[in-house]
């Protein structure tokens, strides 16, 4: 009998994962992460992925989100600050992500705007519609980053390259 609530929780975590994934991939692609590496570390990661058979633009994307706090870190920080401080916590998160971005040689558009869009999405799904809890977004974002960086990175880079092409970024 305790199986059904567990399954419902898992489904909610998966829904939160999909929302977080779409948020950070679309915002990061729109602000040109797959176009150029911001620092040499991102270039090294992209070349390694390309030498293993992946896509160079997807590699730039993955290198950039490793080397500076872009919309991926922004979504995670927005979830955590929303959990602790509410909607205004998300605004504080955007300020901190901006400072982190600039320290990592990044203009800061992707990170701050990703944080604000994530805060708005969490507000809509948790406070307005009340269908998800904020904890699900924290777990969901960790899983979303794992699908990009940890789980099959070569195929992830090809997928990210195709998304960038379809959004006409590259």
């Amino acid at each position, binding site marked *: 009998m305790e199986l059904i609530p567990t399954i419902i929780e898992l489904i909610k975590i998966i829904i939160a994962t999909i929302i977080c994934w779409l948020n950070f991939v679309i915002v990061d692609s729109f602000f040109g992460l797959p176009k*150029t590496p*911001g*620092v040499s570390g991102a270039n090294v990661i992209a070349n390694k992925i390309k030498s293993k058979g992946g896509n160079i633009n997807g590699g730039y994307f993955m290198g950039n989100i490793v080397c500076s706090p872009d919309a991926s870190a922004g979504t995670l920080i927005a979830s955590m600050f929303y959990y602790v401080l509410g909607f205004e916590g998300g605004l504080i998160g955007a300020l901190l992500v901006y400072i982190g971005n*600039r320290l990592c040689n990044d203009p800061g558009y992707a990170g*701050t705007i990703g944080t604000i869009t994530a805060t708005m999405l969490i507000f809509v799904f948790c406070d307005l519609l009340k269908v998800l809890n904020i904890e699900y977004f924290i777990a969901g974002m960790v899983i979303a980053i794992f699908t990009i960086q940890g789980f099959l990175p070569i195929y992830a880079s090809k997928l990210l390259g195709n998304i960038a092409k379809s959004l006409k970024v590259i």
Partner: protein
Amino acid sequence: MIVLDYNNLMFYGGALIVSLIVGFLLKLPLKVNKESFESNVFFPTIFIVLGLCAITKFLFGYNIVYGIIIGIISAIFSKYAINLFSGVDYGVNSHNN
């Protein structure tokens, strides 16, 4: 849950409007350039205003005077952000080579 009462709106809205006016007076460019490290009137001023307003509200409370002070500070910070955090066009150079 955010509370959209009159004082809250005056605090955030007043700070935003003051920051945009002061940014305009400090001759920040109006055009938004996604690739540039230079600040403009809207970015990053808006995000600094919202973040500082939220921090001030949690620490000291909120009223319109705090809002105006935050607006002025944010515009000045935005103007001199390039001196605090200098950016290098690494990607552009490596792309050309």
